[in-house]
């Protein structure tokens, strides 16, 4: 037996159909010129799809509690990485420092030198 606690098998084809519908929504939404619509269509839909796969296909919600705790902890590590490194990467200048290559790259591509404090 693959599981010691019986896993209820939902209608997987129905879940798949919902996932495909969400994929179509994200592709259609990506054609929008409204930034908010594009972001929601891209990442909001991705979060929903990931949740549906994790819940219904991976049965994370049926597993022992420490399994989702472990996965969330790993995501927290990634969030810590982002929080620690992102300010240095995303900004091109700050108090008494400036990243000339990054600014030059931006200007060369026709953008304006942003990210000033």
């Amino acid at each position, binding site marked *: *037996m*693959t*599981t*010691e606690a019986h*896993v209820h*098998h939902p209608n*997987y*084809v129905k*879940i*798949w159909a919902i*996932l*495909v519908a969400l*994929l179509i929504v*994200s*592709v259609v939404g*990506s054609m929008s010129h409204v930034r908010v619509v*594009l*972001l929601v*269509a*891209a*990442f909001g*839909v*991705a979060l929903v*799809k*990931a949740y549906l*796969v*994790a819940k*219904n*296909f*991976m049965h994370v919600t049926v*597993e*022992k509690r*420490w*399994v989702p705790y*472990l*996965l969330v*902890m*790993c*995501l927290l*590590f*990634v*969030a810590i*990485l*982002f929080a620690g*490194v*992102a300010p240095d*990467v*995303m*900004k*091109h200048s700050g108090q008494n420092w400036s990243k000339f290559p*990054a600014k030059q*790259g*931006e200007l*060369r*591509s*026709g*953008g304006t030198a*942003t*990210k000033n404090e």
Partner: protein
Amino acid sequence: MSASAKPIANTRSATGIPTARLITWWVIASEIVIFGGLLASYIMHRIGHPEWAESASHTLTWAGAFNTFVLLTSSLFAVLAHKAADAHDGPKAAKLLRLTTLGGLIFLCVKGYEWTIDIREGFVLSSGGFWSFYYTLAGLHGLHVLAGMIIMLIVAADAAKNQELQRVECIGLYWHFVDIVWIFLFPLLYIAR
């Protein structure tokens, strides 16, 4: 090793779940950090370099969307294989696992076609920051797809003989994780331009 003589790890569990599934979750947890770290790095660099939008506009959205559909469908086959294995129908589980592997093959073929077009247009790994991330992210994901396909075929070979059916769920878990990674890669590389 004969079917009747199993390693001790297979005959006991301190965590309440079978050892094979325990290890699979540990592998997935470590992969979350690997892919999560790469994705987080890409996101922060992408936000810090708005000029990458011009490079990003060259990715083929339709190819990415089709590949997303292929992976979602292969995930369906993988979970149906798990359901078949639960019902002790090894041959059916094996057939569904092979269909899942076929999905992975289609995915890699489309990815290869995509990369051929990109390289012909002059967009290679060293073409800039965006392309470095693009090839690294998609390439690492592709390697995971390939590894999953190989393991899946091995599991399917045993499952066809109604042997080691518990492994069907484990490889399915890995495959769903690979699918989830692509669910996030698709909007990052193909939509958020």
